[in-house]
Every structure is written in structure tokens, then in C-alpha cells.
């Protein structure tokens, strides 16, 4: 018997997790759908000109994803904070890797798919309703002859309303998985109030990073040099002709970007794995 990963054992674990939590999950999905319907209904009631435009759909999708996804991730291993629940959980004859993968399956993969499905189940008919309202109430922007046009359904991967980092590198989309994985780690690391404590930890980390960028890096730059982004620096002496740029080599730049896009979440999962192994009850 493999002591690290065994597919049939993992499937048993997944099955057990599903049967013990399905009612809670299904109710949570219904609640998510209900909240989105309520929010869209509110938007439709107050805006008769361009309701549910792509920007509103985009913000609704990502706000919900970040808030609910991170909150849910912070509960994935919450039983470890309670002795009466932690012992039966750790005593299940499955490896730490299998337990972590089960948490990732439900907290990351299935949650994302379920949330996205619920979003579109609500979004598509609501956008259709918004178009009917536009057609019925106002075809032109107020005091102009400019047509309002119909509202499109949000396309997650190719959205013209998305901020530039998301358009270019999908950083807001992929950043969700990175931040959510920090909450997953928080659910193992913090015994109580893991959601709040993880928010505080992320904010502290962010503060230290900003402080390092401003005080640490900038203070050590040669006279006249300052950084534009994490990847390039400029020397601007006031005359445009004398402006000089330094960029990291293209390969290094690409590697850093790829790391930011795809390595943060797996790194947090790895730390979560070791933290799970070290967990004492």
C-alpha cells in the first residue's frame, strides 16, 4: 500500500467528505445564487439605461469570487482548530497529501467551477432581462441620439472592461488562486478566526513589501533612478533625450511573470502540506 498517495483511498476520502458536507455546500450555492440575483435585481431597478454592463458583471464576479472563495478556503481545515473534530479528521487512515488534495479539490477546483456555473446561471438570464429593459425603456443615452446597444454576457478570459494587468497576464484571475491559497494555509495555521487572521497577515505582508519598495529599494537607487514597476527602472533627468531605461533580461522577466502567475498558489499548497504534517492536537 502506498503511504503517500493511493487513488482508491483518496476517492474514498473525497466521497466521505462529500456525503458529510453536501447539504452545507448545496445550501451555500443556493445562497450565493440568491445574493447575486438580489444584487442584479437592485442594479436593474436603479439603472434603466445601461444596466448590468460588462464592468458591473466583471466586478460582481470577482468581488464574489474573492470574498466567498477566500472565506470558504479559510474553513477547509477549520476542524483542526477544534480538538473534538481534529482527532477524528487526523485519525482517518489517509495520508496528509490525500487530505490536502481533497481540500484543494473542494476548496479550489470544485468551488471555482460551482461558483462560475452559478454566476452564469444567474448572469445570462439577468443580462437578457437587462436587454429587454433597454429595448423597452430607452434605446438612446439621455439627451443624445447615441444608441445604448445591447449588453453582452461577461467573457472571463477575454474581457474588454478588465484592468490592464488582467487583460495582459490574467493577474486578477490568477491572483485569486494565489490569495485563496493563502487562506487555505491560514485555515491550517490559525486555530481560531482564521479568515480574519489571514486578512491581517496578508495586509501586514503587503505593508512590509510596500515599505521595502519605498524605503528599501528606492533609498538605495543611484541619484535620479527610480523604478517603474518591479521589472524596469528609469533615469529621468528632466530632459527627455537623456532618459535611460534598464530592464531585466527578457527571459528573466518572463520567468518572474510566470512565477507570479502560476507558482504562488502551489507554493502556498506546499507550505499547507507541511503545516498539516506538523499539526498537533
Amino acid at each position: 500500500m502506498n503511504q503517500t498517495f493511493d487513488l482508491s483511498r483518496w476517492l474514498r476520502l473525497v466521497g466521505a467528505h462529500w456525503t458529510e458536507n453536501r447539504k452545507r455546500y448545496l445550501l451555500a450555492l443556493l445562497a450565493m445564487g440568491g445574493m447575486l440575483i438580489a444584487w442584479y435585481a437592485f442594479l436593474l431597478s436603479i439603472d434603466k439605461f445601461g444596466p448590468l454592463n460588462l464592468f458591473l458583471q466583471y466586478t460582481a464576479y470577482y468581488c464574489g469570487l474573492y470574498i466567498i472563495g477566500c472565506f470558504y478556503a479559510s474553513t477547509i481545515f477549520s476542524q483542526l482548530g477544534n480538538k473534538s473534530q481534529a482527532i477524528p479528521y487526523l485519525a482517518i487512515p489517509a495520508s496528509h497529501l490525500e487530505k490536502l488534495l481533497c481540500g484543494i479539490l473542494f476548496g479550489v477546483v470544485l468551488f471555482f467551477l460551482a461558483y462560475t456555473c452559478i454566476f452564469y446561471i444567474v448572469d445570462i438570464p439577468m443580462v437578457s432581462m437587462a436587454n429587454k429593459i433597454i429595448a423597452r425603456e430607452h434605446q438612446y443615452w439621455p439627451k443624445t441620439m447615441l444608441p445604448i446597444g445591447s449588453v453582452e454576457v461577461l467573457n472571463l478570459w477575454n474581457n474588454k472592461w478588465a484592468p490592464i494587468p488582467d487583460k495582459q497576464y490574467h493577474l486578477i484571475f490568477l491572483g485569486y488562486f494565489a490569495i485563496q491559497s493563502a487562506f487555505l494555509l491560514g485555515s491550517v495555521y490559525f486555530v481560531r478566526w482564521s479568515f480574519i487572521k489571514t486578512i491581517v497577515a496578508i495586509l501586514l505582508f503587503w505593508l512590509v513589501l510596500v515599505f521595502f519598495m519605498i524605503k528599501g529599494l528606492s533609498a538605495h537607487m543611484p541619484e535620479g533612478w527610480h523604478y517603474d514597476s518591479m521589472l524596469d527602472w528609469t533615469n529621468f533627468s528632466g530632459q527627455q533625450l537623456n532618459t535611460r531605461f534598464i530592464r531585466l533580461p527578457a527571459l528573466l522577466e518572463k520567468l518572474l511573470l510566470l512565477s507570479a502567475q502560476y507558482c504562488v498558489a502551489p507554493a502556498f499548497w506546499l507550505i499547507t502540506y507541511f503545516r498539516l504534517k506538523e499539526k498537533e492536537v
Partner: protein
Amino acid sequence: MVSVKDLTFSYRRRSVFRGLDLQLHPGHIYGLLGRNGTGKSTLLRNIAGFLFPRNGTIDVMGFEPGRRQPAFLQQTFLLPEELYLPPVSVSRWIKNNAAFYPNFSMEQFRAYMTGFDIPAEGSMQELSYGQQKKLLISFALAVNTPLLLMDEPTNGLDILSKSQFRKVIAGAVDEKKCILISTHQVKDLENLIDRILVIEEGRILFNQDMETISKKLTFSLSFDPTATADALYCESSLKGNALVLPNTDGEDSRPDLEMLYKAIILEGEKINKLFNA
């Protein structure tokens, strides 16, 4: 089966064990006694792999418990003092959990459930605390792990259930199984355990089998001042003085676990001197 060597364990600032040694063998039911806060539950959780030794080693059937490998978890079951049962039906919970234990016997489980008079259907949340405890005891016995650790298993059980508990435990042990029961309800273990372990001040203060105890000690009630003067431990009561005496006649007597426990805790030096002689 279980070998604990030079175990040192502490919770942040509070030291619990300092150089504790213990050997447990199959075919026995051990009773682990000790005052509140002496580390009975901590010892069980160290053996089960939920706490890690700060120093020393624990070996359970060739496994290092702290690694919590599936093969180890399949062979060790800890019945914790605090219960948690998820909000599912009994049959669903059994189906979910039994699959992880290769030696689980549904037949045995049903027999224990019938013995304890618990409904095998319905939601587990509808069961009372005592019924939940009996359900977990039934499951703990039916998984047939070679090592079974029970932390205060009789808490919350009524008188008839305690008697049934003793009956099923006595019937469950065989030459391949080892059961370690931690309790402060000494009376509940009477006529059940065959070896007693007393833990005090971070070490095993007393570790003897019941046969040796009955050969070396007698337990009696007496108003006789001579007998009282010879007693290793004496406690006055309305029926006379309850005495723990050295067994000089060589007659086997039934040990009174409560008296024995008090004698060990309060007159440990005298008792150990007698057993080490």
C-alpha cells in the same frame, strides 16, 4: 507492540513528561490511572501520533506515530474523550469510515450496537451523548485494530451501559490486541483490566499486573488497631478502617482498585518498596 523510551513532552511552558518509559504488549487490557492534569490523555495522543515527543522515541508496531502514515492509522484507533459526529445518518457514517479499516466487521458492529441498545438508523445528531459514545465504542471495537486507545470511555455512560462496556471489552481482547484505557473512574475498570499503570509527575509511578497485585497486597475492612498500624494505607469509614496491607499469608485477594490507586498516589514509596523487594 508499543515502546515508549525516555519520552519528554511539554505544552509551551508546562512540562508533562520527563523521561517516561513504557512498554505495552498484545493480549492485555491496560488501565491508565492518574490525577487530573498528569498527562493521561497527552500520553494517549503521543502514542496515537496526534502529539509529537519533544525528546525520546515512541515505536508502535514498527511505526513512528507522529508520521501518521495510513498503514499506522489503520492499526491504531483512539477513542477520544470529546466526541464529534458529523450530521449524517449512522449507516452513512459507517459506510464512509469503515472502508478505511481493512479489518472492520459489520457483524461485530451490529452485535455491539444491539448490546448497547442503540438504533442503527437515523441521524447521529439525534442520539444522546451517551448513545453517541456507545456508537463510537462499538465502532472502535469493530475496526479490530491491534492497538485500541480509549480516553475516558465510560464518561457519560449509565450504570447498565458501563456493565455492558466491561463485558464487550473483555470479549474483544485477544492475544493480538492491546487495549489501553485511560480513566479517572477507577471503579469502571474493576474486573476488566489485567495491568494497571499509574502516571504521576511526568513518569509511570506504578506498573503491575493484577495477579502480582493480588499476591502482594490484601484489601480489608477492620477496626483492629494492630492491622491498622501495619497497613500501607488506611482510610476510615463507617464500616471500619479500609486497609491496604501487605499480603503476608499468600492468599489471593480481589484488589480494590480505588483503594489501590489512593495508596499508590499517597503512599507510593511504601507500595513501590513492597513491589520492588
